[in-house]
């Protein structure tokens, strides 16, 4: 990299840290924006105005803070992982979003957006879900707030996350299996967007990751930034200083962006995002968007995505339904472009092995999504002995039991 490029990247990072990105057009540098049918533009304008008016108002923040404390259970714990530390030759700390209500980081965003939807006068909420965690969080948050909730979920995901489907229904949500497209998260987003296009005034679309048209990538990041704020102060207090590495799994990237934001301004902290490497490096064999993707537009935003030479979106493949998405949030594309965050991938087998190791050594069953972060962190630790690692444990793995049952412990993989 030339000195000029380095200067440019530093200036771009400064702009992000100063709050100048996303800009007025919803862009992080070249990434982001709003690529949606005209019908949705007024709804996005209203949402943007609502976000500007309420999100950082003292009243909203006070209500949200109280709910995060009393209902979600924040702050979540920072757990030292002594046996993993010994096995890896590093000092490992876990930020425990699996201990948040409903079992994953998703609840921070679902609760905040449901509160916002109510303030903006929405009559109903639609959401999409992949692994089901965002669907469960949305269903729970809507029940808490008192709004009807409809969740679109790909038919394949409904089958592999059957427990979460039942949870959503018990929490009062209507779950609609999506039989079109690839019948996973991507098709569920398509369907939720079509629903919203059909009733943009009465419906609030509770988007589950830092993807989609502006202002969603910004809004969802702000809802999850609490993870990084808590983690930074906890690790300084408990470990006596900043970590050398902050690491998290990246599908759409909401848990990762929330954690990363606490540390972007700390130049001594290396930041690593781990994508789903699936079965291999070929297109269609993984969901590692930043590692193998190209610039393009999907679901309303300009970012990196897995598409072919003709612009068709590729089917993805990952053992983890929650990472099985062919795009990534535009802010991650930006952080990759300016080199502030490094993105690697871990394959299915590595993730499954990492999950077993965490279970055996720490008594924690992480989500399959998070298992990718464990695999990536372990690899990093080999090259960086004795360093301090802070890992975002994005959710618990109970929901993955039907998938895990297909991969016997230590078995044929």
């Amino acid at each position, binding site marked *: 990299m030339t000195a000029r490029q380095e200067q440019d990247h530093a200036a771009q990072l400064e702009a992000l840290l100063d709050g100048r990105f996303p800009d007025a*057009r919803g862009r992080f540098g070249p990434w982001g*924006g*709003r*690529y*949606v*049918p*005209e*019908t949705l*533009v*007024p*709804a996005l304008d209203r949402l943007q105005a609502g976000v500007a008016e309420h999100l950082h108002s003292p009243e909203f923040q006070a209500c949200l803070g109280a709910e995060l404390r009393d209902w979600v259970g924040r702050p979540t714990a920072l757990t030292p992982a002594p046996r993993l530390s010994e096995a890896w030759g590093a000092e490992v700390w876990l930020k425990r979003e699996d201990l948040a209500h409903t079992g994953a980081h998703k609840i921070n965003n679902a609760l905040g957006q449901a509160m916002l939807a109510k303030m903006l006068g929405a009559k109903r909420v639609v959401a999409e879900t992949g692994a089901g965690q965002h669907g469960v969080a949305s269903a729970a948050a809507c029940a808490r707030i008192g709004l009807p909730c409809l969740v679109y979920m790909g038919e394949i995901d409904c089958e592999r996350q059957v427990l979460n489907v039942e949870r959503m229904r018990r929490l009062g949500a209507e779950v609609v299996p999506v039989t*079109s*497209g690839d019948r996973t998260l*991507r098709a569920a987003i*398509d369907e939720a*967007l*079509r629903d919203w*296009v*059909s*009733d*943009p*005034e009465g419906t609030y679309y509770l988007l589950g990751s830092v993807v989609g048209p502006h202002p969603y990538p910004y809004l969802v990041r702000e809802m999850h930034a609490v993870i990084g704020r808590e983690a930074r102060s906890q690790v300084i207090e408990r470990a006596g200083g900043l970590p050398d590495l902050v690491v998290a799994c990246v599908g759409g990237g909401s848990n990762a962006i929330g954690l990363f934001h606490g540390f972007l301004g700390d130049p001594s902290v290396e930041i690593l995002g781990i994508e789903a490497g699936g079965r291999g490096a070929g297109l269609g064999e993984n969901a590692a968007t930043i590692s193998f993707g190209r*610039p*393009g*537009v*999907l*679901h*309303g935003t300009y970012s990196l*995505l897995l*598409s*072919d*030479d*003709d*612009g*068709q*979106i590729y089917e993805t493949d990952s053992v983890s339904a929650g990472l099985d998405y062919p795009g990534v949030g535009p802010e991650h594309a930006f952080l990759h472009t300016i080199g502030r965050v490094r993105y690697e991938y871990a394959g299915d087998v590595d993730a499954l092995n990492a999950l077993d190791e965490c279970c055996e050594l720490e008594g924690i069953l992480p989500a399959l999504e998070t298992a990718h972060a464990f695999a990536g962190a372990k690899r990093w630790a080999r090259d960086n002995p004795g360093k301090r690692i802070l890992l975002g444990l994005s959710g618990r793995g109970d929901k993955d039991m039907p998938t895990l049952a297909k991969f016997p412990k230590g078995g044929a993989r």
Partner: protein
Amino acid sequence: MKPHEQVSAAIRAAGAEGRTALVAFITAGYPDKSRFRATLAEVAEAADVVEVGVPFSDPMADGLTIQRASRGAIEQGVTLSWILDEIAAMEPKPAAPVVLMSYLNPLLAMGYERLAERALAAGVAGFIVPDLPLDESEPLDEALAAAGLALIHLVSPVTPPVRVEAAARATRGFLYAVNVTGITGGAKAAGEGLQAYLAGVAAKSPVPVCAGFGVRSAEQVKALGAIVPGVIVGSALVEALERGESPAAFLAALRPAG
């Protein structure tokens, strides 16, 4: 005459003959890839403008019919590049101006300059891009305008008046008025609200306005045609093609009697 002017002229010519212009949508290469040129030629004989859908894996604004058509075409290997080659190779050329309807990503993948060059060479008159609102359209618009091609903007019943005016100023070829707040092929377009909305759009637009989404019958064509110079028929025509019906006969039946 520039390609985008040919589109406006075709719609105005129908009006001069006392007809409502018919803009007919087909998905390229669906249901039968091998019959694409023949179908396009036949539709172009019966319609005033033809809208050829470029299949995309994630058609955000489309209902089940066009989703099914897009998937079917992709499975047969239909790509933007193939469509441009096929149209370029047609002899004689289609009898009506042809515009392509594509989501943005296939256009981005080709690159805007190359897209404009190839579209012009193929005889395509312009583009409709449903996931490209006015605010994001400048880069594509510049490339297409330099080649004299249309970029047809859309407005919907929830578009504020100030945006309708901006879209009407920016659009070339025609202004696409979406009849319903929803996806293609969905709720039947009707009602006094629709008439008022379309009349408002038509009053603001210096180019012809064509109304689309949910148009399935001659009665609708007649009612809409009383307010705007053109109507767009999509899902209903695709379904007729799926049933193996003659597109010419289907479109003729949409023309109001008398």
